[in-house]
């Protein structure tokens, strides 16, 4: 399956059909994104490593690039076509692509199935032409595709995202624009970003199968509005889920005016309820909002799955209680500290006389990093504690960088036990949070988010065990 879509993600040559010099057009955005990495300036932008061709019958040169009248005029082999022309001439362009033996086309152009029956007919015609020549299509009516590792930005999105390990497939293109803008601010990155558009040909299930075998992808985030083939999705998600976690945000949950139906069951099972049931049944994690979608994805990509019994370490009593409340509300068991663990802590000579001696383990406000080091190590030695949330409130004597190091060292020493941190604060904590995150430790200012991330790891552990 990976091979079947490879021309989209690792092409050697790309043709932009409908390349334009008008800055407010998609054809301009796509060509510029390929040449420069993005339309907006960003440190992440780099020009595409492969060959780029511009096609526009009414121009000689755009952005210094020679323009071909048609894709047929290009003598070299083309792997991928990005089409941003008026919908009326898309069928002709697709025909030319098949004659040129191109195997992949991203159709940016709108004006197809999303318009209704007439548009759907046009879409089916496109597919017929493409199928005969084994040309695969992403779109139509989409933003395009990004693959940061090869500097491929075949879209008119704002710029290239950071290269990381979450694949993001979205049924909304506009949302991708905002997600990328947000992600750069958060140092969040992607292995691939695909806007599905109308999914006339390549659909969500096929992309999942591709991501399953993609070495760069460790978790798959989905933004869904609806599925065409629910049972096929479930089957594929189950298979992919054995290897990689899938996290979904589903829009369109409130079905107002649920029709009066003849049975109780009919009125009890709303459309979103059914989606949720299906997701649970095939091991897909459900995110409640955009933040959760990407936070759960990062946690699942960067931390191991675990069993349900975890500990909290904190240097602030209130923060610990708050986190414990959140853990309980999402269904996390808080482990009991064993006698052995407590005796080790007592004998360490590093604990404050008034430390809590129970979970959440409160190290007391004046805790320096040594106290964190001993507490983290001792807690993780306890066999039936499977994961840890480390909270740090920023007191004047706190050592955030050294505390972060303690967490990072513990991750290496106990690779099977996830650690999520909650460095509560902002400006003065930034450097240490960056250190944690570049070392694959997800950090959340809000302890509730830490609990949600930990719960995702627990769910993942449970799912993998039942397979």
């Amino acid at each position, binding site marked *: 399956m990976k091979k079947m879509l490879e021309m989209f993600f690792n092409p050697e040559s790309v043709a932009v059909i409908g390349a334009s010099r008008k800055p407010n057009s998609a054809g301009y955005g796509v060509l510029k994104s390929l040449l420069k990495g993005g339309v907006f300036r960003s440190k992440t932008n780099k020009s595409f490593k492969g060959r780029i061709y511009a096609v526009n019958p009414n121009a000689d040169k755009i952005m210094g690039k020679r323009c071909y009248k048609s894709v047929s005029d290009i003598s070299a082999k083309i792997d991928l076509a990005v089409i941003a022309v008026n919908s009326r001439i898309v069928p002709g362009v697709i025909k030319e692509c098949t004659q040129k033996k191109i195997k992949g086309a991203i159709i940016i152009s709108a004006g197809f199935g999303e318009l209704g029956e007439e548009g759907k007919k046009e879409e089916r015609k496109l597919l017929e032409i493409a199928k005969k020549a084994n040309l695969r299509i992403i779109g139509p009516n989409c933003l395009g595709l990004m693959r940061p590792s090869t500097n491929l930005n075949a879209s008119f999105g704002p710029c290239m995202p950071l290269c990381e390990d979450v694949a993001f497939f979205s049924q909304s293109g506009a949302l991708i624009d905002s997600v990328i803008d947000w992600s750069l601010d958060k140092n969040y990155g992607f292995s691939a970003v695909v806007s599905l558009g109308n999914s006339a040909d390549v659909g969500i299930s096929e992309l999942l199968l591709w991501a399953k075998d993609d070495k760069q992808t460790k978790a798959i985030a989905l933004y869904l509005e*609806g*599925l*065409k*083939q*629910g*049972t096929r999705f*479930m089957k594929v998600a189950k298979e992919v889920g054995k290897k990689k976690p899938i996290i979904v945000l589903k829009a369109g949950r409130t079905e107002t005016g649920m029709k009066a*139906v*003849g*049975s*109780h*069951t*009919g*009125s*009890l*099972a709303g*459309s979103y*309820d*059914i*989606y949720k*049931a*299906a997701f*649970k*049944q095939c091991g897909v994690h459900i995110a409640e909002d955009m933040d959760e979608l990407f936070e759960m994805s990062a946690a699942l990509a960067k931390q191991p799955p675990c069993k349900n019994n975890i500990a909290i370490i904190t240097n602030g009593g209130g923060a610990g209680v708050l986190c414990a409340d959140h853990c309980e509300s999402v269904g996390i068991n808080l482990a009991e500290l064993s006698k052995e663990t407590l005796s080790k802590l007592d004998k360490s000579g590093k604990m404050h006389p008034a430390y809590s001696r129970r979970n959440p383990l409160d190290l007391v406000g004046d805790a320096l990093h040594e106290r964190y080091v001993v507490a983290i190590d001792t807690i993780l030695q306890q066999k039936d504690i499977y994961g840890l949330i480390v909270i740090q409130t920023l007191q004047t004597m706190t050592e955030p960088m050294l505390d972060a190091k303690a967490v990072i060292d513990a991750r290496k020493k106990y690779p099977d036990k996830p650690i999520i941190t909650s460095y509560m604060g902002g400006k003065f904590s930034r450097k240490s949070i960056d250190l944690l995150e570049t070392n694959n430790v997800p950090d959340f200012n809000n302890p509730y988010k830490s609990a949600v991330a930990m719960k995702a790891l627990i769910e993942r552990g449970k799912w993998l065990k*039942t397979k």
Partner: protein
Amino acid sequence: MLLNQKEALDILIKYNIAFPQTAIFLDRGDISNLKINYPVALKIDSPEIMHKSDMGGVFTDISSSVELWKKVEILEQRLKEKQIKEYKFVLQEMVKGTEFIIGMKSDKTFGKVIVFGLGGVFVEVLKDVSMRIAPLSIKDCKEMMDEIKGKKLLEGFRNNPAVNKEKIIELLLKVSQLSLKEKEISEIDFNPVIANEKTALVVDARIIREKNA
């Protein structure tokens, strides 16, 4: 189209789904010939009535044939007032236990969806249900029982004994199988399903078949 009581019972029998001892009759004249153990519940069965308890079409805990005669008389009066012509009476042995709902709905994206939850007349108020897409596995059934807010009722509460979970799993699996095999059946309401330590019985079965099938 809503199946009548006889057709619904035939489906239950076909899939070996347990229901209380039941008798169907037309008028008071038949009462003396009925072989059934009291106490019983009396219900109206008519294609003209969607929710029979809403029109007072159900009497429970009838303890003798004399009382039954009186209740039938009352129902006949109500049917006459409402000008309902096509009907039968259904008599059913009373069962004690906790009320659940087990149902099925056809969804255009996922196919047959099986629903489990707290049953009785308050289902639509409490909406305490869980669901899964057919075919169900045993794990799915267990999760469905675990997901409802009222799951403690399965363990027994006050006068209600703990229910036999194995029987509920069995029933859920049968509904899953039935739903996939009888493709033209589009909706099912088994409400209530009454469960106790020994058994889980379908006390009322409403089965809807697609019109064009």
